[in-house]
């Protein structure tokens, strides 16, 4: 049986958005989440949690998403783990910038809570199989 998306490491500093995303990803997607309040927390928790996917906000205090991505990539076990940015900074050149950093995709805020889980799963499967 093919590997399934189960564990998501999620970093987001805005508590409201955090709870909504957590609710939809846990209830709709049935995923196991480790929720972090900023990039630093995500980096600290990453190795022990061993996520299948990392979902990062871009603008966060302490350490932002791109910095977190850079730090996580230095952890050998997580060097290949797919990363998705979820951000409201979605101008075309910004999106391209995040992809150049190694993100598999950028999900624009506001996201649709009813389709978020499915979207993430598709992106993850495509990345795993490529």
């Amino acid at each position, binding site marked *: 049986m093919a590997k399934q998306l189960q564990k998501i490491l999620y970093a987001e500093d805005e508590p*409201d958005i955090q709870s909504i995303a957590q609710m939809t990803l846990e*209830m709709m997607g049935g995923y196991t989440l480790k929720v972090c309040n900023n990039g630093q927390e995500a980096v600290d928790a990453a190795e022990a949690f061993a996520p299948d996917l990392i979902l990062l906000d871009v603008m966060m205090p302490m350490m932002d998403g791109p910095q977190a991505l850079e730090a996580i990539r230095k952890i050998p076990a997580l060097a290949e783990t797919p990363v998705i940015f979820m951000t*409201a900074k979605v*101008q075309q*050149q910004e999106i391209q910038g995040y992809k150049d950093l190694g993100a598999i995709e950028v999900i624009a*805020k*506001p996201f649709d*809570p009813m389709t978020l889980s499915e979207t993430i799963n598709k992106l993850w499967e495509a990345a795993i199989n490529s």
Partner: protein
Amino acid sequence: MQKIDQNFLDQVERTRAILDTVVDGIITISAQGIIETVNPAALGIFGYTEDELIGQNVKVLMPEPYKKEHDGYLAHHIQTGEKKVIGIGREVEGKRKNGQVFPMELSVGEMEVSGVKMFTGIVRDITERKFVESRQQEVEARTKAIIETVVDGIITINMQGIIETVNPATLRIFGYQDHEMIGQNVKMLMPNPYHDEHDGYLKHFADTGERKVIGIGRDVQGQRKDGSVFSLELAVSEMSVNGKRMFTGIVRDVTERKQAEKTKEEFISTVSHELRTPLTSIRGSVGLLMGGVAGEFSDKAKQLLSIAQNNTERLLMLINDILDLSKIEAGKMDFNFQEMDVQALLDHAIEANAGYGAEKEVHFVVENSVQGAAVHGDEGRLMQVMSNLMSNAAKFAPKGDSVKISAVRHHNQIRISVTDHGSGIPKAFQGTIFDKFTQADSSDTRQVGGTGLGLNITKAIVEKHSGRISFVTEEGVGTTFYFDIPEIKSHTLDTENETVLRPGVKKILVCDDEPDIASLIRLMLAQSGFEADIALTAEEAENLLRTQGPYSAMTLDIQLPNKDGATLYKELRSSKVIENLAVVFVSVQAERVCTTDPDIKDNPPPWVTKPIDENNLIDAIELAIEEKQGQQLVHILHVEDDADIRQLMVLLMDESFVITQAGSVKEAEMQLNDLQGNRFDLVLLDIGLPDGSGLDLLETISELTYPPEVLVFSADDIQVNEISHIKDSLVKSKTTNDQLVAKIKSVVANRKGR
């Protein structure tokens, strides 16, 4: 003695003639200043008669202070021999009889006649020259003042790039003193790469005359004396001063403007982000509630949630549109152009918007498409255009209706259109429909949603694709929005002379087992404004008829592999397909089949033999279509220089009209003289044409074997009864589309009844 006298008299006569005709005034005075002779020019200059001047002191011709000083001058000169008065070209003032003082040039000569000292004064009135000079000085002073005070830097350089002049603004902008700039190469003001490339530019221009540098409003970089680099707008023009070619560069420091643009961009980006963040929470919460995450709600609660959700979506659209708009206005919208298949674009657009259509209870259907056509486009942006036009159409279409999407070739462009059968756009809003925040009715905003920015953005995107967007609308009938973007050349059929357009006539299916002949037939059809698809076998033809139709007509070869054309024809006839499909046999065996086949010979279709004569083919197709449609096609020659009005006609008239277009008197003459046995039923005539008056065509028209009716449709109100051959006239600004169509139909109907 007698002889000498005669010579002497001749000489005197000649001298007198000279004195009488020269333009300069010549006056002789005695040593005491008494006028002895004056010539006519002098009289003219000063306004006296000869009698009034002879014997007077020359001082009468002088204003103060010359007048007072003159006696003294003369006395001084005679006593000392010092020449204060005598000389050439002094500018002094004279006084006319009427008291007017004027500038004159004075040369005084001294002579002795019979031992008596005399003076000759030659005077020239320089009033006019002075006037011109003073005007010139004024203009120069003004120009100089402008150049000195203008905020833009103005620099002239010679062909070698050496700075010849600079104005103070230039010095201020670049931080130099003028002596540091004049005589230097202008590239001192440029950072690299401009610095190194500039000599090459100038040389290239000197060698080839090709202007790489010259032009207006180029954004370049400048370098100040302190080495700092800044944004510069540069306009260069070429001029010739005393036969020497020079360049003038006008430079404007746009550092501040660029900074303001950047600040605005950052502001918009930040605002957009800051607005999106709370919206994410709202949209997420409402979405989850609507999705039943927190259990079921009462109908009332659902209704309220739905209101919240709709308005969240609207706010989001507005933020997206404002962001797009600010990017467009800053010229910062990115486009990723690549070759795109038109058919795929339409399919994708239908797929992406089907959901929205279902919500509004309308269907999107592709009515026409151009197979294999491609354009250079940014797929995401063109999808945005399609979604905008389709969602607009869906909003205004009646429930349960179809919104038609079509792509056709139109003068080497691909025209994509979206047609609804909604209420149409009210006249008052047609002019501003592409402006920002305009919607037909402010109440519409609430009724149909939308931001009022969509069409403005759509227009900008289309224009970025070298295209243009427009619409045709009729209140109560519907609206078609269409945009044209260039087709990629290699895919374009050779239809450059395409002037015939057939509104409403569908494609033609060409069935022939020889690919070359099939292509040839398609080319012939294209030149007469028909689009065609090709089938190489009877089976393929059946398949295309089923899947790609409807077709207006089919050309059918008889000899085909597996199933022959005659058999296919009979099958189509018995399956009733043929009721709406005109068939023309194109085959060497056509005559045999049409005259001998027992199932065909009683009611044969039109046929054309091979080798194919283009005119016969087109005639046969038209005849077949006319027969199918149970009516004669009306042939209109539309003489009109405005392409939009020509296009409007094509959209207005139904398939029973064949419209041939002419954009000038010359083109119309060509069409009228090249009828080859065909006829026009009506000439719709514009008067003001680029190469003359439409009325110039009336003679040619009246001399035709079957003179068409003439309906004038122009900006001017023509008195019809004053000009023969004209049936009627309509004034563009006063005629609605409906009136125009009705008038054309009635003119044509009357003609048929005749």
